[in-house]
């Protein structure tokens, strides 16, 4: 019987199986940010165990509220910063170099096919785009990860989702993942890995695959996973060219992590996307999905472009192409938060930032900020945001506020019209 990617990664990283069904894995990358890590640091200090298992396998960034907005957030940032310096963690990203963790760390080439990755952040599943097993964990799992480099999991079964056909014009990875979440439901993949395949995924850039895997958790999934292929190798090449004689050799090596043709899946779902239209959420759960055609005209107060879901360069390109020569409708405000400094620089060099500013957008520094209602674009009670983020829980972006999750293209079209709008007429 063949194995899935997740099964191969579990087998290769197994440290212990203390009880049937529980597997303790060696962790290749432990990621830290300033919201969930400081309490782990404080606990380690209180236990007299202020140590790290490996200074090169721990990556840290201040990203959720940055620059700090008050004394409390400044204290959290300081705790992470002091800890990173104390332990000489080389890959620590502070103001000026910091960005949204799940956009920044892939950009730095930290994730490789076959890796195990944990972080005290539920959207860690993003990194599965590289053919890795990447799971969000709580502070205690993170703490043990920092101290020992291990983490315990119930071995997840895999659900294979084949995205077949080709994406029509105006339809993107975000629409595809909203379709999948609508199909699975918010707990349809609990304790499961969602493995994405099919012609649509094969044609996708790494950025799009990250958008896809990013929202696996919104269906309850432990990790999203895409098979490593030529696209993966091309993306990683600047970081791996010293390790392999050629791209062919890298591809051959990474392909070993791909699921075997006779691997067993708990469920295989085939979805043909050739007739898919732009989608958005309408309620307070990410599986409450409708077509934008149906929702067109729904009122909005704010448009937000950014986050670990859709704050990358290709997202900004798509939105800017629609916004070019247009203005924000007078009833809405627009906020763009490029996900990383590199995205910001590249967008500026391509003239995209100018397009957003000419349209009337406020361009903020890279941060998670408004996505989780912590800073830089929090909603007032009763306000509605058309947002490229990942979670639409009641009050997520601010107490009493509502969020429609949608693609950067739909966000841009909605900004122009001042209400939810179909992007296809602008393309």
């Amino acid at each position: 019987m063949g194995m899935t990617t997740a099964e191969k990664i579990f087998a290769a990283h197994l440290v212990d199986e203390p009880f049937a069904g529980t597997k303790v894995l060696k962790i290749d990358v432990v990621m830290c940010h300033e919201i969930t890590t400081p309490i782990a640091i404080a606990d380690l200090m209180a236990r007299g165990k202020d140590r790290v298992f490996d200074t090169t396998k721990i990556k840290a960034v201040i990203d959720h509220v940055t620059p700090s907005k008050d004394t409390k957030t400044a204290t959290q940032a300081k705790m992470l910063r002091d800890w990173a310096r104390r332990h000489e963690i080389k890959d620590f990203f502070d103001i000026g170099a910091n960005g949204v963790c799940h956009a920044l760390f892939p950009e730095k080439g930290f994730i490789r096919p076959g890796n195990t990755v944990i972080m005290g952040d539920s959207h860690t599943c993003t990194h599965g785009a590289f053919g890795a097993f990447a799971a969000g964990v709580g502070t205690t799992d993170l703490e043990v990860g920092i101290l020992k480099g291990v983490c315990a999991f119930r071995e997840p079964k895999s659900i294979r989702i084949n995205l077949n056909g080709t994406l029509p014009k105006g339809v993107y990875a975000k629409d595809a993942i909203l379709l999948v979440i609508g199909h699975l439901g918010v707990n349809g993949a609990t304790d499961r890995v969602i493995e994405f395949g099919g012609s649509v995924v094969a044609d996708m850039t790494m950025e799009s695959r990250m958008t896809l895997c990013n929202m696996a958790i919104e269906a309850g999934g432990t990790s999203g996973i895409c098979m490593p292929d030529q696209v993966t190798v091309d993306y990683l090449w600047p970081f791996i060219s010293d390790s392999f004689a050629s791209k062919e050799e890298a591809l051959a090596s990474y392909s070993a992590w791909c699921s075997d043709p006779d691997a067993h899946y708990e469920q295989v779902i085939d979805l043909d996307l050739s007739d898919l239209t732009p989608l958005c959420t309408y309620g307070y759960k990410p599986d409450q999905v409708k077509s934008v055609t149906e929702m067109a005209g729904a009122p909005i107060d704010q448009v937000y472009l950014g986050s670990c879901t859709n704050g990358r360069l290709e997202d900004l390109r798509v939105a800017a192409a629609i916004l070019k020569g247009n203005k924000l409708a007078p009833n809405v405000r627009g906020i763009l938060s490029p996900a990383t400094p590199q995205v910001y620089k590249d967008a500026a060099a391509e003239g995209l930032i100018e397009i957003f500013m000419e349209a009337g957008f406020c361009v903020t520094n890279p941060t998670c900020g408004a996505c989780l209602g912590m800073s830089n674009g929090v909603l007032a009670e009763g306000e509605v945001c058309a947002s490229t983020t990942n979670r639409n829980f009641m009050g997520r972006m601010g107490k009493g506020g509502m969020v429609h999750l949608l693609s950067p293209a739909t966000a841009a079209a909605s900004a122009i019209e001042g209400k939810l709008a179909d992007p296809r007429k602008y393309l």
Partner: protein
Amino acid sequence: MKSFGGPALFLDRSDINTDEIIPAKYLTEITKEDLKPYLLEDLKLPGFDPKSEKTTGAGVVVTRANFGCGSSREHAPWVFEVNGINAVIAQSFARIFRQNMFNCGMAAIELSAEQIDQLFSFADVADAAIEIDIEKGSLTVSGGGRNEAMQFDISPFDQALVLAGGWVDYADKKY
């Protein structure tokens, strides 16, 4: 062995998320105790009041499916812990929340939909309380002059975490 349970708080909805358990704006607190006043602050349910004695005096939460979905914040178990709630009983949990509970030495007990319905038959009983025996995998619900016993499955690993007082102590000894 620590005892689990106490006066029961019934939250009759599926998919209660971690933003409802503890809103993100309080994630800037850096001690667990500081979270105490904000328990379930944004949860909107008919008849539910986060500040009522029923809520603040609870020792165990009974709820429906997919409890604790959303963010990985361990602040969700912590806000229960500092309010004296050390067990949540649900039809199902989101994975990260469930693991966080056991990692903290707290209990996340899964029961069938029928058993959860039986527990909810106590929802309007003023003195409804639940006592949980983790080692035996059994619980007793009582109130209004009646009581009922139930069995539940708990994985041996989760049981070991509870007995060890959490994952840090367990892992530190073993790995």
